[in-house]
């Protein structure tokens, strides 16, 4: 079954690792916080790996951030993960929820169309008309269910919801209960221990809303940064490329130097500074590690099905265009400038950059 669906939730994908960690907790007699399935140390091991137990590392780059996130979820405050797009905020939130309560699916997606119903509860209107308000006709939101179960609810992209909708969370987070007046004067759902909320938010993107000070005060903020270490990012992209290709990996020849080229170009454009320290024009589009993996994957598949099975800088250049050129005309100029200056200079002494340059020039002329 799980082989056929495109993406399985973390708790299923890593079910064996979670089981191992649970056993290890039981063996050491580690104390579990109320409502938690794993001890905080085991949650940490799930995220950053434990060689002895055979648990893989899933979140890279900032171990102290993981510590802080776990500890925040132990307390009264919610956890707000902020940062540029593509810095693995959602993945971190999914992994934390999977490890802490074994369910990463109690998720609300924030959009401009999110309403209070999505956060509190709504009704099955056929039943509502037939029977009036009852527990049967009430449709609980993921947050409602998380409160009932003492689990972690996730609120993705909270700043994309309108501020007054976001503020529905304020009373839920401070009172830890939700009134349901339709079911009677005293009807309410009180959160069981273990309930908390992990929200992710983007503070700078276009089309995001402000967050009220009242809501901000209910959250501890953690910023997830792009990966700092170049060598490590190359390593990560290579690994995720292998994972993403799965069975196809055997059919594609991948030269590490091409991956290096891709990551270098991404890093240059993301930071606005080349590896040599020269300032360049920085495009507005998001150049995250996740995007780099997407480009690498698409380029590898292109070489598999449309090329000769060897990943070269040509395919990277082809796929680069799709990511880097979204809707911003200025970005096209900036990229052309990058190709004309930095890439041209590197092409003088490096074959792969030369290939990249000619493919890119052919596309952008």
């Amino acid at each position: 079954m799980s082989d056929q669906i495109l993406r399985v939730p973390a708790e299923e994908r890593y079910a064996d690792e979670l089981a191992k960690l649970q056993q290890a907790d039981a063996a050491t007699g580690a104390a579990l916080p109320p409502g938690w399935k794993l001890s905080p140390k085991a949650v940490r091991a799930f995220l950053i790996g434990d060689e002895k137990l055979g648990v893989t590392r899933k979140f890279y780059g900032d171990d102290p951030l993981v510590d802080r996130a776990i500890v925040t979820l132990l307390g009264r405050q919610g956890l707000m993960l902020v940062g540029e797009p593509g810095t693995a905020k959602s993945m971190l939130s999914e992994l934390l929820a999977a490890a802490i309560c074994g369910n990463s699916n109690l998720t609300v997606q924030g959009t401009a169309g999110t309403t209070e119903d999505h956060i509190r509860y709504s009704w099955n209107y056929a039943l509502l008309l037939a029977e009036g308000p009852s527990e049967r006709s009430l449709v609980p939101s993921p947050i409602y269910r998380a409160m009932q179960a003492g689990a972690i609810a996730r609120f993705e992209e909270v700043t994309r919801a309108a501020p007054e909708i976001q503020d529905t969370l304020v009373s839920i987070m401070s009172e830890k209960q939700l009134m349901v007046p339709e079911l009677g004067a005293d009807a309410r759902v009180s959160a069981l221990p273990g309930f908390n909320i992990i929200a992710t938010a983007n503070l700078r993107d276009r089309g995001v809303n402000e967050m009220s000070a009242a809501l901000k005060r209910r959250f501890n903020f953690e910023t997830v940064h792009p990966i700092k270490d170049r060598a490590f990012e190359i390593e990560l992209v290579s690994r995720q490329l292998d994972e993403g290709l799965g069975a196809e990996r055997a059919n594609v020849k991948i030269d590490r130097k091409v991956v290096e080229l891709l990551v270098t170009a991404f890093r240059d454009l993301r930071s606005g500074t080349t590896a040599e320290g020269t300032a360049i024009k920085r495009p507005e589009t998001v150049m995250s590690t996740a995007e780099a993996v997407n480009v690498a994957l698409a380029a590898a598949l292109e070489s598999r099905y449309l090329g000769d099975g060897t990943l070269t800088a040509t395919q990277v250049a082809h796929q680069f265009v799709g990511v880097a050129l979204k809707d911003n005309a200025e970005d096209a100029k900036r990229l052309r400038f990058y190709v004309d200056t930095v890439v041209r200079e590197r092409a003088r002494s490096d074959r792969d950059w030369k290939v990249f340059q000619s493919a890119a020039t052919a596309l952008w002329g």
Partner: protein
Amino acid sequence: MPAENDREQRLFAAKRLRADLGKTGIYFAPIRHHSVACARAAQALIADVRPEAVLIEGDSTLDTLLPALMDPAAKPPLAVLVLRKADGETFSSLYPMADFSPEWVSLRAAVELGAQVAFIDQPWAERKADSQTRSLMNERYYAESQTLARLAVQEHCRDQDELWEHLFELRADTGWEEFFDEVFTWSALARLDYEPQVLEAEGSLARETVMTAHIQAWRNRVTGPIAVVTGAFHTLQLIEALSGHEPPAASPAPAELRRDKGPWLIRYDLTRLDAYSGYGAGIRSPGYYQRVWEASDASPTAACLVDIARAANAAETTDTISVAEVIEATLQAERLADLRGHPWPGRTDLLDACASCFSSGEQLPPAVRDAIAEVFGGAKLGELPPNTPTPPIVAEARAWAQRLRLDVSDSLRRHTVLDVRRSASARERARFLALMAFLNAGFAAKTAGPDYIAGRNLGRVREEWDYAWTPMVEAALIGLVADGATLREVAATRLRRAERELDGSPNRRSSNAVAQLIAQALLIGLGDEAGRLRDKIDAMVERDPELSSVVGASNYLLGLWRSADMLSIDSPQSLIGVVAKSCPQIAYLLEQASQVKEDAEPAAVTALLSAAELARQLADPFPDMADVIYSAIARLRDARKTSPGVLGAALAVAVPGTDPGISERVLAAFAPGGDPDHAVRMLAGLMQAAPDLILHVPEILDAIDAAVARLENEDFLLFLPELRRSFTFLKPFETAKVAERIAQRTGVAAEELAATLAISESDMRLGAAVEQALRASLAADALLEWCDA
């Protein structure tokens, strides 16, 4: 891996030897400088073994300071200042001690016990010259160790400091024996990463030879136990040498007292002990560790967080941090400590708790960051026993002032007027006062005279100064010794620091900024530094991409050249060499700056005018240089791509030997069919450059007048703001003259041109009637509230 095996064997052997030496009464306290945990363990060791002698790592010539250090009136933070002469220069170095420094704690524990105390390290004056290292307690070994770096990754620590805290500062009391055993292992791991050649080259081996010899000498001198308190990095070697496993130590360096004056004990403060403040020999967060030390066995977590919240709230720039949030942060720190296996929250746990709980965005608010820096940095100032001798820099400044016949006999404020053009001694005094002002010693302030740094009042020939020799001046001077031993040396260090900061800033290509440094160097009499900076600017001026910066630099240098006699500049001609080099660069950049968009025009015009002004200044002594700039300006007049505003300015600027034909060009621009936008912008540039031209060349005004008359109404309104702006460059009386001339042309009296808004009584009545009718109509439609809104 045989190498790995060798290392392990050597480590285990050394551990056994250490135990054996303990049996003979030599106890090692391997420490990290400024470590609270090490200080406590050393205190426990001394209390436990009651040594007859306590031997401390420290320049053996510092023994002269022992009485002062042992004086109960001495209160840390203090620092020992050592001076050394080499190659004609004096170097200074510091040996700072806080309340919680293991060396200080050991010394005081020894005093209490009545044990003998001695410093056993190689005198600094004999150590390998390393002028870069001003610190006598450098611990870069650990930061550079590969083994420790791997260990840090394994323990999920960000760096060596966090690893050290994780392993040693945050542990339940296990007794000094086990503690020092583990510190020894930890430092030996770092030590074994080093090749003997490296240790030889940087002088560690030589120092250890001296220390070994001292320990042996003390072993022969006393019968009771001996405690040896040294940096843990050295312990492995000391143990091996004392046990005869290493080649026998050469006889200790003869105690040749090649001592310069000093050493000196000075007051220090926690701020400067902070590793981030750049004084070296520091630790991170001395203020925090002071609190840990004072809290003895309790952790200062809650107190720190309360103080951080208070300090941040006092700034009133951020949302108030509530008590509830402080409680939450305290819990957060405790839970983090729990997760990380710490018995109580440490420095990183505390900082992480602040990061989690006190931010409501991507970064901590600046007020919180400042508050953390304040609480973690600390501000405690040490105290010296009375009559402690002061370092030579104070005497130097005083003697220098006396030699120049400045009155420093008391602390009264005095005023002096220096005729720097005529008198050499006045110039000498001015240099000294400027030097003291540059050093922020609080001694002198200039009240009038040329300001070479701001480039103001350069024509003045007198300088006026206020000065006073107060106790504050002495304190400030002592504070300077971290940067050098003499006034000039400190000034040179500061100048170089400013230069380094410049090199690291976005301004690093600005020749103007370097020229400013040259001016500063010359002003305070540092000719050598100025010479070095001159070479630097000479190399960079042709690569400076900023027109205003190159022009500014040339102005500075030209100004300095003109003041060469007042500033006693040795080779003023070399400054002019740089100006000669920058003229072609200015010409090149002028062309670049001439092609700008409309909104950048005023700035481009300003740059062009400053270049023209420079050319005018240069014309008299150096006509060739001026020509380079002038011809560049002349070229702009005919270049097709020149922006209209810049073109207007280029036309208006007087270039000797050329006639731009301004009136024809203006007429042409405003002629029928010309682009009105182009014409108006050109006019704006022209007026910005030389507003009075419009008065002296009547044809220009005529052309404008005719052109404006021809403009369509809409276009006129469109260009009106720009036209208005153009005419604001005129002075009021010039505006009046222009009005007169316009009036003449149109045949009206000048006064009639002034727009007046006269309202007659009947107009008022009409207005009131209209309003009433309108109200009535709205009232009829129940819309009256629109009126009041």
